[in-house]
C-alpha cells in the first residue's frame, strides 16, 4: 500500500471506488447497529468517515492460538476486506501478510517510523515474562521487547482476545511461562481491551471502526468498550424470562433443556459476564452458546479459566470444595464447649464451696 493512498480520507477512498451514497448510508447504519449506538449515530459516523485519514495498524501476535485472528477474518460487518482496504492500513500482520522473515520485520519497522505517534497497535496473545521472556521470541527478539518497541510510538493499543487483555490461557494456573496481559507491561498508552475467547468478530472490527471514526470509545473498568461489554449476557439473554419465572434446565437432556429454559443451574456464567453474544451473536448472527443449549463460560472475564470452580458449577454455589473443615470446626467447637461447661461447673463448685465455708465460719462465730 502506498503512502499516497494512506494519506487519503476514508471518504475519498470510498468514492474513488465508486461507492454510492446509499451504499455509504447502509454501511454507516450497519456499523452503528453493531456499535450498539443509537440508530441516529449512523449519520455522525458517516460525517467522520468522510474526513478521517486511514490509520496505520500493526498487528502483533504473541502467546496466542490464532483463534482471535481466525475470528476477525470471519467478520462480515464490516467485512475484514472492507476494513483492510477501506478503513485502515494494515501494515504488519505476520499471519496475514505475504511477506515473511526479514522482509516482514522491515515492513513493521518502516510503519513505525513513518507513522510514529499515530499508528494503532493491535495485540493478540499474552506476553511471557518468565526466564527473561524466552518463551516467545520472533526474529531473535522476545515478545516483551517487541511489544515495548512497538508500543513506544503508538497512538493507542487494542488488545484482541482474553490472552492479551487479561492473560487468558497462558496466564491460567500454574502459568509456567510467567505470562501477563499487555496492561501489565504498557501503562502509558490508551488501552482498549476486546476480550473473549475469541472475541465476537464484529466486535473486533466495530471497535476498530469506532476508534477510526470516534476515537477511543467509552470503556469500563476493564478497559472494555461499553458498547459491547456494557451489559451482561444474562441481561440480554432471550432465556432471561425463564430465569425470572424460575424455569431451569437441570441436566443437558431434560425437558427443561429441550424447552430452552434458563441454564443457570447448569453453571451459566451469563449473569457475571459482560459481552455482546446475546445480541450480536455468532456466525453471522445465527446463534450463541446459550441459544445452542450450552451455558456461558464467561470467557470475556478476567481469569475465567481459574475462577468459579467449574464451568458447570452454578454461580450461586459456594467455592469451598468440601465441608470437612466446617465439620472439623464443629468437632473442635463441641470439644471447646465441653471444656467451657466443665470450667463453668468447676467455677460454680468453687463458689458454692466458698459459700459453704463462709456459712460454717459464721456459725462458729
Amino acid at each position, binding site marked *: 500500500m502506498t503512502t499516497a493512498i494512506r494519506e487519503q480520507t476514508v471518504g475519498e477512498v470510498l468514492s474513488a471506488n465508486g461507492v454510492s451514497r446509499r451504499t455509504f448510508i447502509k454501511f454507516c447504519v450497519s456499523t452503528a447497529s453493531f456499535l450498539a449506538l443509537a440508530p441516529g449515530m449512523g449519520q455522525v459516523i458517516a460525517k467522520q468517515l468522510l474526513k478521517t485519514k486511514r490509520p496505520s495498524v500493526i498487528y502483533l501476535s504473541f502467546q496466542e492460538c490464532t483463534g482471535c485472528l481466525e475470528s476477525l477474518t470471519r467478520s462480515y460487518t464490516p467485512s475484514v476486506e472492507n476494513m483492510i482496504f477501506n478503513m485502515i492500513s494494515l501494515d504488519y500482520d505476520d499471519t496475514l501478510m505475504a511477506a515473511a522473515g526479514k522482509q516482514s520485520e522491515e515492513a513493521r519497522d518502516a510503519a513505525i517510523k513513518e507513522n510514529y505517534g499515530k499508528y494503532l497497535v493491535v495485540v493478540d496473545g499474552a506476553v511471557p515474562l518468565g526466564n527473561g521472556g524466552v518463551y516467545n521470541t520472533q526474529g531473535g527478539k522476545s515478545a516483551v521487547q517487541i511489544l515495548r518497541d512497538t508500543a513506544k510510538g503508538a497512538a493507542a493499543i487494542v488488545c484482541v482476545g482474553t490472552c492479551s487483555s487479561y492473560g487468558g490461557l497462558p496466564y491460567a494456573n500454574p502459568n509456567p511461562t510467567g505470562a501477563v496481559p499487555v496492561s501489565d507491561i504498557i501503562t502509558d498508552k490508551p488501552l482498549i481491551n476486546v476480550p473473549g475467547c475469541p472475541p465476537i468478530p464484529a466486535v473486533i472490527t466495530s471497535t476498530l471502526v469506532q476508534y477510526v471514526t470516534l476515537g477511543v470509545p467509552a470503556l469500563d473498568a476493564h478497559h472494555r468498550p461499553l458498547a459491547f461489554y456494557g451489559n451482561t449476557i444474562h441481561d440480554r439473554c432471550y432465556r432471561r424470562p425463564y430465569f425470572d419465572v424460575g424455569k431451569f434446565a437441570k441436566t443437558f437432556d431434560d425437558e427443561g433443556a429441550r424447552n430452552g429454559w434458563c441454564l443457570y443451574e447448569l453453571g451459566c456464567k451469563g449473569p457475571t459476564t459482560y459481552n455482546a453474544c446475546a445480541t450480536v451473536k455468532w456466525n453471522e448472527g445465527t446463534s450463541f452458546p446459550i441459544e445452542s443449549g450450552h451455558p456461558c463460560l464467561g470467557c470475556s472475564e478476567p481469569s475465567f479459566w481459574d475462577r468459579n470452580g467449574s464451568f458447570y458449577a452454578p454461580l450461586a454455589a459456594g467455592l469451598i470444595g468440601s465441608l470437612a473443615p466446617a465439620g472439623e470446626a464443629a468437632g473442635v467447637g463441641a470439644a471447646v464447649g465441653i471444656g467451657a461447661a466443665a470450667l463453668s461447673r468447676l*467455677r460454680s463448685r468453687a463458689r458454692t464451696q466458698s459459700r459453704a465455708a463462709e456459712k460454717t465460719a459464721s456459725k462458729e462465730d
Partner: protein
Amino acid sequence: MSAQSVNTTTAGRVRAMPADLQGDLSNRARVERAMQSFALEYGSLTAFRLESCIHCGICADACHYYIATEDPQYTPILKVEPFKQAYKRESGPYAVFFKLFGLKRRVSADELENWQHLLYDSCNMCGRCSLICPMGINISELIEQTRHAMFDAGLAPAELYAKAKHQQHSGQPEASKEPYRDMLLAIGRQYKVEIPMDKDQAEVMLCVPRTDIEHYPKSVAALARVMQHLGVSCTFRSDGLVAENYGYYAGGREWQRKISMRLINEALACHAKTLIVPECGHAYTALRWEAAELYGKPLPFRVRHVTEYLAGQLQTGRLKLRKAGNGAVTFHDPCQLVRKGGVMDAPRQLMQALGLDLHELENNKAFSFCCGGGGGVLDIQRAAPLRYRAMESKLREVDDSGAQTFLTSCSDCRATFDDAKAHFNWEQTPHSLLELVADNLG
C-alpha cells in the same frame, strides 16, 4: 440507700428505689455472696432460659405492673437482668469473652440494690409472663433464682426477711398472743367443730395459713368440718401448723427448706399418706413442687391442695354437696394454684357441685391476673401504692363479671382483696370456696 448507679449498660438504667439491707456487709462481700448464690443456680435448663431471650419485650404485655404503669423497668425479663449479666460473665459458654473483653461488667452492689424494687416490690412471681414468652422462657423461675441471690447478699425486703427469720426459728412468721395451737383449738370451740390435734397416726395431715388463724377463723373451722364430714382420719400437728413459707418469698433457700422440713417431719411422724395444703397458693408451690427438691428425695406422702382433695372425694362419691343458693358467682384463680400449680379444674368441679352460676372473669384460669399480693408483696409496706395501681384492673374485672358473690381459694389473695376493699371502698367481698363447701355439706 447507696448512690444511684452511673454505669451505662442495660443494668444501669433503673430508677433508684429505697432498698432494705441486712447485715453489715461491704459492697464487695454482697456482690460475692450474690455470685456464690448464682453459682448454685447455674445449670443447663437455666442456661437455656437465659440464652434464649431475644429482647422482644412481649413479656411486658403479660405483666400487670407494666400494664398499669407502662413503665418499661417493669418488663419481667429485665427484672432478672443481674442474673443474666452474672451468668453471661461467669457461667455461659462464652463467659471467657464476656470477661476478657469486658462485654458484660461485673454486677455491682448498686445494681443489686436497685433491683430489689424490681424483684420484690413489683413482682408477684405469678408466672403470667412465662406463658406469653415466645421463646418459652420461664421467667418466674428466673425471678425465684435471682431472689435467692438477693437474699444471700442481704438484700431482701425487711418485712419478708424478718418474717422468714422468725418462721425458720419459731415455726410461725410472727409472734402471737397465744401459741397457734391454742388459737386453733379455740376456733374449734367457737365454731363447734372438733380440731384433731397431734394424733400419732393419721391418714391425712392438715395445716393452715396463719392468715386464716389470725383473720379468717371460719376457714379453719371449715377445713376441720369438711374433713370430719368425710370421716377421714386426720390431724393437725402443733409443730407443723403453718402452711406459709416466708423463706420462699424472701428467697432464703435454707430457711425455705427448714420451714418445709417442719411440715415434712410432722407428716412423717404421724405416718400421713396425704398432706393437705389449705387455701394458700404459695404454700402449694412450696410443698407440692419444691419441698421434695429441698428434702433431697421424693416425699413419701402425697401433697394435695384442699380443693384438689375435695374434688377427688366428690368423684368417688364420698363428698356430697347441697346446692348453695342462686345468684351469680365469680372466682379468682390464685396464680400459684392454677397457672403455676395445675389446680384448675378442682375448684370448678366443687362450684359445679354446689350448683353455682359461675361467671368467669375476663382473664381467667391460666391467664388470670394476680391479685397483686403474691410473692410476698402484700407484706411489703412500701410496695402498697404500686400494688394498688397494679390490681385496679383486677378489681374492675370482678366488678364487670356481674357476680354478687366473689370467691377465691387462697387466703393471701383473700387478704389482698380485703385490703383493697378497705383502700378503695370496694363493694365486693372475697369469700373462701372452702367455707362455702363446708356450709353446704350434703
